[in-house]
């Protein structure tokens, strides 16, 4: 039959079930905290305190969230087309070149507001290109995009090590990284934004790219729900049969979607390179590409869900770092576990609680169930 589950009210579908999945993920994470001999409640309060308790904490939280908005959007855009892009990590990594090269060429002569657009374009182009190849292989050669994007992550990693060690490393330096950019390659911080609500950002690298991430979230919403292209992408994602009936060219849509996805992942590189380190370092992506998967699943692939989900993960990253001062047992790796659990419960097991919830609502609304039943054929 067409619908495997009975219909539930929208707020249950989009609100309650994801929330329950999330709570279960955190409960299991709490068990891990318990297992290492700490109190989950105290850990939670430390976490929140560390992430939101003071200006610098908030600055860091939002700095991390910036990365995750980009990568979460990247995964989500691909999801809308029925594609699973696991390659955000590699796309962001390679896109670092699109950020670093304009900075290295121009930072002596141009102000940041000239270099920033160039770097945005550069990162989007390079990231988009890196994702286009798996997209093309999927569309034209039928190679599964999941496997090729995984492979491209590793290829990206090797490529970037080579580039950083053998090409971009300044002569005489030992560290595999570019030289530090002059002022033109540094994005202004958003201390004024937090200052306006009376918070001191301290040393947090909360910068312009956060605003760009919000713009990107809006643009993604606009493209997916308000343009012809987005309409075609969603048609493909929901029903390839309907797409072919509608005369939508499938390979074209697959390739374009992957390029958009890669471009979004690529723009993540702006935040750590131009916004924080002011140079490109080895492994600057640091797993943000993968966090994007959890963020997209949690945010149900909608920018309105993705931004808070990214902030939640930003909170976990920042708060997690804080916890480890108080509880040496719990390092930031705790976040990796939570990330895995969120992916497991909000993704792979998303329907685990659905039968029970459906049954609950069925008994609750038994009297009016006749009317609300969808037409089955």
């Amino acid at each position, binding site marked *: 039959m067409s619908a495997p589950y009975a219909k539930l009210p929208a707020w249950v579908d989009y609100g309650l079930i994801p929330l329950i999945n999330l709570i279960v993920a955190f409960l299991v994470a709490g068990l891990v905290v318990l297992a290492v001999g700490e109190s989950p409640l105290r850990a939670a309060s430390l976490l929140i305190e560390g992430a939101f308790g003071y200006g610098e904490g908030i600055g860091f939280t939002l700095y991390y969230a910036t990365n995750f908005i980009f990568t979460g959007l990247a995964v989500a855009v691909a999801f809308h087309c029925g594609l699973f892009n696991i390659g955000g990590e590699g796309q962001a990594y390679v896109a670092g070149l699109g950020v670093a090269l304009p900075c290295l060429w121009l930072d002596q002569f141009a102000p940041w507001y000239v270099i920033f657009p160039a770097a945005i374009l550069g990162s989007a182009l390079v990231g988009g290109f890196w994702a286009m190849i798996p997209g093309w292989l999927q569309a034209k050669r039928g190679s599964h995009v*999941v496997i*090729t994007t995984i*492979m491209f992550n590793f290829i990206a990693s090797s490529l970037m090590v080579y580039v950083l060690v053998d090409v971009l490393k300044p002569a005489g330096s030992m560290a595999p990284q570019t030289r530090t950019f002059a002022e033109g390659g540094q994005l202004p911080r958003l201390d004024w934004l937090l200052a306006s609500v009376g918070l001191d950002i301290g040393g947090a690298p909360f910068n312009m790219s956060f605003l760009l991430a919000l713009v990107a979230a809006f643009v993604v919403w606009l493209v997916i729900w308000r343009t012809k292209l987005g309409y075609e992408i969603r048609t493909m994602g929901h029903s390839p049969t309907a797409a072919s009936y509608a005369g939508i060219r499938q390979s074209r849509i697959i390739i374009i979607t992957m390029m958009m996805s890669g471009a979004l992942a690529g723009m993540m590189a702006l935040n750590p390179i131009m916004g924080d380190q002011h140079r490109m370092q080895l492994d600057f992506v640091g797993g943000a590409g*993968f966090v994007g998967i959890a963020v997209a699943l949690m945010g149900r692939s909608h920018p309105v869900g993705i931004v808070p989900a990214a902030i939640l993960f930003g909170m976990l990253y920042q708060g997690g770092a804080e916890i480890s001062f108080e509880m040496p047992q719990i390092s930031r*790796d705790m976040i*990796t576990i939570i990330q895995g659990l969120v992916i497991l419960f909000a993704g792979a097991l998303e329907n685990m609680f659905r039968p029970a919830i459906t049954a609950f609502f069925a008994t609750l609304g038994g009297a009016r169930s006749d009317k609300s039943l969808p037409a089955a054929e």
Partner: protein
Amino acid sequence: MEYFDTLIVILQSTVRVSVPLILAALAGLYSERAGIFDIGLEGKMLAAAFAGGAAAAVTASALIGLAAAIFVSVCLALVHGFASITQRGNQIVSGVAINFIALGATVILGQAWFRQGGRTPQLSGDSRFTTVELPYAAEIADIPVIGSIYSNLLSGHFMLTYLAFALVPFTWWVLYRTRFGLRLRAVGENPGAVDTAGISVTWLRYRAVICCGILCGIAGAYLSMAMTAGFVKGMTAGKGFIALAALIFAKWKPVNVMFACLLFGFLDAMSIRMQGNELPIIGVVPVQFMQALPYLLTVILLAGFIGKAIPPRAGGVPYVKER
């Protein structure tokens, strides 16, 4: 003669680094031939390496370590099975989740239990696997070529190494010569055929993921208890994905898996060996290129430019009885 010795050394390290790849790729083979895609090989191997290292350190017994490694890996495999078989969830998502859970949990638990920055205590003596000298290895070592091959290349490996290589023909035998293998291959191609033949698709697929768990467990144990003496944070370092690449490269066939893993292992060994050295004719090849080569080759294969890798037909699709 100098080149020959170098070659022996490179081949020796090829064998060393290939073992976890072979075990993990064979693990993936059981699962994927049954129609359950598994990109969580990395995570299972990592968790097993930790469990093995931890248990061996505590009990001072390598065998208990191995058992713990297998147990933990099988548990994770069952989680994957539950998500993919019972809950009919997305197998890719589930695999990704398991990788992260393992990556985080090994560090957190390691730090909590041993307080050595995510390491487990150094293993020695009975708590670690030791190498096995084949008979007469010392005696014939001096015979040119043959002696060197025998005593340096074939002899002096861990039991687990010999086990890994023995598992290749064994897996072939299981797959093509036993009832379980016949059904396993069938369920990955057409679960409907298995169901109508009166065999439980669910139970068969669970058994397949359990096999996968066992082999990933052994692979992990090899990493932390044989190849090195203890668990180090993130020690699988992408080996699970290279194994996955090798499995695809081998077109899901056991003997091919061994050769693919040896090839990828050889590239790895070469890249370590060659660091900065010039190759005749080609000149200096960046190490990173050698490291990326397994992935590049797999992509080229997947694209159908050299042969075609056709995955098991029912792979990745949860089985639902059709109406």
